[in-house]
């Protein structure tokens, strides 16, 4: 990058306000581009467009905070920290996310040193998003990872691990397992065949149990649009499932009814265990530990 371009970007970022040296700011820009264009070399025009698209003021503030500039920290504490905490409280009103936000604040400051250099988490901010969005994202990631970690360590509740299997009043239907397996197979295929956006909405609604408003906020759609797409997708899945049961398994109307009914015949633990049988369980490896720690 030539000196004029760097100077222009520094001016846009108001880097002098926090006394961020040119080489530090240049280093931040280059790391940002390196991450964004991973695996390929961008053209000069691409790079210029990319730099212009960055949240430069936030990037300069992050550089200054990482360097420990006191006035930058005052600004951060005044403008960002309260909202960080409000966001954490919205994620988990019980205070668990607030703890994470407090720990993050200490890490942002960089209390730990490595080879005499402060290790601030700010170095992982690349300016592609606003600083506010990045902070929320960091809290969300840490909260979810902590939650999942705790879930792995907690023993299964007694009622699901040691409860006696209920005695059946009637002999089991020999075809039931076949119907359950068939329905599960075609349902998985129907879900896999969906467009990613449709699958994402469906997963957010049914698996994550998010509200329509929350889904709308992440898909950048109107709530009514999300609702309409959900209804359409579910209808399409049902039609797909029924068609696959007929064509791939050769089932007639009565057998398709049996397939659906077989899923609810044994409501409760037994049914759940069947849906989550061992061959479907995957080892939960927290790959986030191998990613950059931001």
């Amino acid at each position, binding site marked *: 990058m030539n000196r004029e371009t760097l100077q222009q970007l520094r001016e846009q970022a108001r880097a002098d306000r926090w006394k961020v040296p040119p080489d530090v700011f240049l280093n931040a820009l280059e790391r940002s581009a390196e991450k964004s264009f991973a695996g390929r070399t961008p053209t000069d025009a691409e790079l210029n467009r990319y730099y212009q698209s960055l949240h430069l003021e936030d990037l300069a503030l992050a550089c200054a905070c990482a360097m420990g500039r006191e006035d930058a920290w005052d600004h951060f504490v005044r403008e960002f920290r309260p909202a960080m905490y409000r966001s954490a409280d919205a*994620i988990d009103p019980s205070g668990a996310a607030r703890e994470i936000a407090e720990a993050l*604040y200490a890490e942002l*400051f960089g209390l730990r040193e490595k080879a005499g250099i402060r290790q601030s988490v700010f170095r*992982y901010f690349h300016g592609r*998003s606003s600083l506010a969005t990045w902070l*929320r*994202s960091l809290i969300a990631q840490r909260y979810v990872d902590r939650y999942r970690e705790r879930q792995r360590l907690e023993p299964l509740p007694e009622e699901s691990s040691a409860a006696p299997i209920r005695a059946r009043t009637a002999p089991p239907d020999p075809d039931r397992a076949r119907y359950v397996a068939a329905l599960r197979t075609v349902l998985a295929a129907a879900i896999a065949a969906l467009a990613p956006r449709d*699958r994402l909405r469906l997963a957010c609604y049914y698996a994550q149990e998010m509200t329509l408003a929350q*889904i709308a906020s992440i898909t950048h759609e109107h709530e009514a649009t999300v609702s309409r797409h959900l209804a359409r997708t579910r209808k399409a899945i049902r039609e797909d499932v029924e068609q696959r049961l007929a064509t791939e398994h050769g089932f007639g109307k009565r057998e398709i009814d049996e397939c659906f009914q077989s899923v609810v015949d044994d409501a409760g633990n037994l049914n*759940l265990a069947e849906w989550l049988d061992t061959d479907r369980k995957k080892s939960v490896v927290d790959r986030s530990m191998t990613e950059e720690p931001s």
Partner: protein
Amino acid sequence: MSADRDRILEQALKHELRGEESTTPHLDPETLAAWQDEALDAAQMETIELHVSSCARCQSMLAAFARGTTAPPISAPAVETPRFQWWRWWLAPLAAGAAAVTLWMVVPEQQREIATAPPSPTASVASTPAAPPPAADLAQKVDAQPSSPEKRARAADSDLKENKLKVEAPRDDRQQLKDEAVAAPKQEVAMAQPTAPPSPASTAPMAPAAAAREEVAGARSAELQKSTRFAFAPLEVPTLDRSVRWRVTGNRIERTDDAGQTWASKHERLGENIAAGSAPSSTVAWFAGRAGIVILTTDAGATFVEVGLSEPLDIASISATDARRAVISTVAGRRFQTDDGGRTWRSF
């Protein structure tokens, strides 16, 4: 059988979509933030959407992020004043006039009478703004703040360690108050929304069927709280009167009659389960949501009546024309209509 299949399919979807993790690398927070700020190119956006659509862990992170987003927005430093857009000045009254004429033609006379009824005295008392905290208190909070950023970071670190020792101890919010006092005392005072205590009518005992429905919705909310379920985003419901609006925030249903300057809490039990609302007049409002819950007020929130569905269906939208007639749509696409104020609902 058709409705049964839909219900069974919903249960099956919950199991099928839960617990799977993608084999491709997870999203890191920086990429998630860039994706949410739409700062990536089209190919990157597609790649990420494809991953997130099949990865339970990243979906959980997205859900947490979405909930965090419902918090009040982070104040952006040095926001540039938007340029004057002259055309908005004549477009707004034009649109309002067209809407008013349309509504006058559509809304029946009876409902117009309801709309012009004076608000109950309870509402006006409830919406009285609370006095702001004394400035001296805020100054004291500012003084109590550690002097340098490093001290503050170390204080946060040591607070965290102390909190870890007292796992079940209730949170002390004084630190937050200090932070907010430092952040912008004047803004915080101006933003403080007074909330009145719930009116006695809103906590009156409900009919057994309504209580059962509420129990279903409550149990679902509690179950969701245990997982990575997150709070409902604030929902605003406008009325024909521009100064009167409703909003659902947290577990509360609130009403303003001064264009949002003050909000009075009108109902504090079912808010978390509300997904949609419709207010055909300034005193009549319908709210609907999870597990078939529908509640109706015809007296500006002084009392609410539970008029929900007999089945625990999740309701996505509601559109009401007056205190008697409303149409709801469930997430599954089913539609129900009432002509008797919610006493009976018929599918159509």
